[in-house]
């Protein structure tokens, strides 16, 4: 526990030091980034201790706030969530020292360090007021990070939607903690076990408050509208931290609070599953249609959160139905996917950031052929792509493997129409896996491979050593996760045991061990090496000649002839996806014999935001403005208000 305080101390000092107006921004970067790296290191040690220790380390300090107490609790579940936080924080800090442009860097590092501190505090808080305090500090610091480049109007708009969504979510959390505090007498989590004695309907209302409150921060389907705007607006290592970790603190909150609520009825799990699978399908469908790389990755975060929610919902559902093996598999799958997603999504965001850093723009239409000029970044993005599509040697497959096994086991075991639901989920999950493949091959194929589409892409320069080393570290972690799935299961086991005590024996035993996955990953690498050596052996003697790509007789192939981002996903849109998701495209259809200059504009705004939330808020604002005529401006009416208020009060007092 004291390593955690050490990390907070270092981060806090770093934040203050970086806030001071130093002469050269180099010092700020060193101070801020350095303190972030050191803080994360000591945080990692604390997380490690938390994972290894059997009993939870608690710390309590009387805090002068009414109803609040500065009490922390570092148990297996908190340590499990601290792990990705400090890994991604460390790597992000290293990356940020080079990525952050000079003039914007000053306050950036203080917000970054404070974000890390507040996220760590959210995960270890053991008192309702402290939890909300840290929760809102996390939202505020991330808001200030999102609007780092506040001179761009769309960045400010994204920041505003983000702040709005988190605040509405926080209102639901306020309601939850206050009701819980009212029932249990105090806001300490220790006294929240009284919640388990609640009757059905009240517990359900609390659960719904939890889902809306944490859902709006986790980017769960209907409340995800801020995510595709906010994450791309932030600097890349901050988007990595937000997508990889901050979204997971919401899942942590949901899990921690659900562990206090009474035994969940089946429909809770059902609700989470339906939201999860719709979110996954919606997220990945939208990800396939975005021109902006980071926006596409943000949508893929919505998809992965959907998958995690599907797994956790299925865990609740099958625990309520009494299938413990299936529940253990689903829980393991959910938590492992959560950890893996933190790693490979951060890798992808850092890669996208370095692409933007090198080629100067986030638009896929202006990238192309960056692999030749940025080999390391290219390789890292390919590794990240393989991990996110759950392709074998990487860690993405481990989480999905557990989820599939849970669905399969329950699909095979349930008789009658009960088995219908998990099987349908398997079908959808497979569809999502296929679409993920489309998204990643699109990003890699259009951005990295092929012919550069703009002069800036032609002169793209490779990232410096900090950015490269950050990405390499994450890629190695992903590969290690894929090759040694046992370690992943052991780490998640610590957290899962706390959430689902009666599945403890399963996590220890051999029933759900992914041992073979590791072996197959090694075998795959062996087979690849063998095939590669065979290829080199056969090619060794023959000469390698380079020529232009075979263009079926075209003499001068240009970059405009290769597939573009829109055309890549066009077949998927028309073939698979439903019409409500099709993006707006003002196509430049040529009419007449001598068409003038035509342009083709294509953008895919979020349909939920455009078709539901924006009209709703506009209409509400319209009503409010109409009611404002009460303030009509002439004094007589105001006098009438006073007079009628007096008379009304007199009558009311008279009646009582």
């Amino acid at each position, binding site marked *: 526990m004291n390593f955690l305080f050490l990390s907070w101390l270092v981060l806090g000092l770093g934040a203050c030091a970086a806030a001071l107006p130093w002469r050269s921004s180099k010092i700020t970067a060193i101070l801020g980034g350095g303190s972030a790296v050191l803080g994360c290191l000591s945080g990692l040690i604390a997380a490690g201790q938390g994972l290894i220790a059997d009993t939870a380390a608690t710390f309590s300090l009387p805090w002068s706030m009414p109803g609040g107490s500065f009490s922390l609790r570092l148990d297996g579940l908190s340590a499990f969530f601290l792990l990705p936080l400090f890994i991604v924080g460390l790597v992000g800090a290293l990356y940020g020292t080079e990525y952050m442009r000079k003039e914007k860097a000053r306050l950036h590092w203080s917000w970054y360090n404070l974000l890390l501190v507040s996220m760590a505090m959210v995960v270890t808080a053991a008192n309702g007021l402290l939890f909300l305090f840290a929760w809102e500090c996390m939202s505020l610091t991330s808001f200030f990070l999102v609007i780092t480049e506040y001179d761009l109007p769309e960045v400010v708009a994204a920041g505003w939607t983000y702040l709005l969504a988190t605040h509405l979510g926080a209102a639901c959390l306020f309601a939850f903690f206050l009701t819980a505090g009212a029932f249990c007498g105090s806001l300490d989590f220790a006294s929240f076990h009284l919640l388990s004695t609640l009757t059905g309907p009240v517990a359900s209302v609390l659960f719904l408050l939890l889902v809306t409150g944490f859902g709006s921060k986790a980017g769960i389907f209907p409340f995800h509208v801020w995510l595709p705007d906010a994450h791309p607006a932030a600097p890349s290592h901050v988007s990595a931290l937000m997508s990889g970790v901050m979204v997971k603190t919401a899942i942590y909150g949901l899990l921690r609070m659900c562990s206090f609520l009474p035994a969940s009825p089946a429909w809770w799990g059902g609700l989470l599953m339906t939201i999860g699978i719709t979110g996954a399908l919606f997220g990945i469908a939208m990800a396939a249609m975005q021109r902006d790389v980071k926006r596409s990755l943000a949508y893929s975060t919505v998809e992965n959160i959907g998958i995690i929610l599907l797994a956790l919902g299925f865990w609740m559902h099958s625990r309520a139905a009494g299938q413990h093996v299936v529940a253990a598999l689903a829980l393991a799958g959910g938590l492992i996917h959560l950890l893996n997603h933190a790693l490979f999504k951060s890798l992808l965001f850092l890669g996208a950031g370095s692409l933007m850093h090198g080629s100067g723009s986030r638009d896929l239409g202006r990238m192309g052929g960056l692999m030749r000029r940025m080999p390391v970044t290219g390789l890292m993005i390919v590794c990240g792509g393989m991990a996110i599509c759950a392709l074998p040697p990487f860690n993405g497959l481990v989480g999905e493997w557990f989820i599939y096994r849970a669905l399969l086991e329950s699909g095979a075991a349930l008789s009658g129409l009960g088995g219908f639901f998990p099987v349908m989920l398997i079908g959808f999950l497979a569809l999502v896996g296929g679409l993920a493949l489309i998204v990643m091959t699109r990003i890699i194929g259009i951005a990295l491979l092929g012919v550069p589409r703009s002069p800036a892409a032609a002169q793209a320069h490779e990232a410096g050593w900090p950015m490269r080393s950050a990405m390499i570290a994450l890629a190695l972690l992903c590969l290690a996760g894929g090759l040694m799935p046992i370690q992943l299961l052991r780490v998640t086991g610590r957290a899962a045991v706390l959430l689902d005590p009666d599945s403890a024996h399963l996590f220890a035993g051999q029933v759900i061990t992914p041992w073979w996955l590791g072996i197959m990953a090694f075998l795959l690498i062996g087979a690849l090496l063998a095939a590669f050596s065979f290829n080199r052996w056969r090619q060794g003697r023959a000469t390698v000649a380079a020529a232009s790509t075979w263009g079926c007789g075209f003499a001068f192939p240009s970059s405009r002839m290769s597939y573009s981002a829109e055309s890549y996903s066009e077949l998927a849109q028309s073939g698979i996806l439903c019409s409500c998701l099709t993006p707006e495209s003002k196509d430049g259809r040529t009419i007449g014999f001598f068409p003038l200059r035509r342009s083709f504009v294509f953008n895919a705004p979020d349909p939920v935001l455009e078709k539901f939330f924006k009209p709703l808020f506009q209409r509400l604002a319209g009503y409010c*403005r109409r009611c*404002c005529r009460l*303030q*009509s*401006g*002439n*004094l*007589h009416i105001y*006098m009438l208000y006073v007079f009628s208020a007096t008379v009304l009060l007199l009558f009311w007092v*008279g009646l009582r």
Partner: protein
Amino acid sequence: MDTLLHLLLLLVILLNFFLLGSSRLASCIRTTAFQGGILSLLPLLAHGFSGHTLFLASVAFLLKGIAIPYLLFRAIRQVHIRREVEPLIGYVPTLILGTLATAGAFIFSGRLPLIPEHSQSLFVPVGLATLATGFLMLISRRKAITQALGYLIFENGIFIFGMLLTEAMPLMVESGVLLDLLVGVFVMTILMHQINREFSTMNTDNLTSLKE
């Protein structure tokens, strides 16, 4: 003594109705001054001649009878308008509302239990009636001066009501009330002067630009 008191109070109610009905500004101010004069006699009649009541009556007479009407007349002369423009809801409806308000005041004061020696006096109903009339003038009149007059009548209503409690109201607070009344009206007249200079008219219709 009581009959004279009742007569004076009934006179006050009649003056109220006259104020509600009349449209000429000068006569309104004179009526208010006259009403102020009557009110300043009340403490002497109600509680006999003692140092306290004498001083109170003289200060009230000085302020309500002379000082404030002089200020208002000066304001009128600078603005040289004579006639109140048609009130928001017309003269007849104002009068009807005035009678309704007075009836309401009497009903309301009927429900309030009075101590034996006050049970016969009409102080409470007349006070409330004058108060309601003042409120009505504030609501319905357009000219700033008539609104100030309405505020004055409103204060008169409270002053009548204050008569019941002369021994409770120490001297200092009584004079404080009157002093504040004077300063309030004084500031109002300065403002009316500014309004007139700014808008070159005294009615408050164009004072509605501040709205949502």
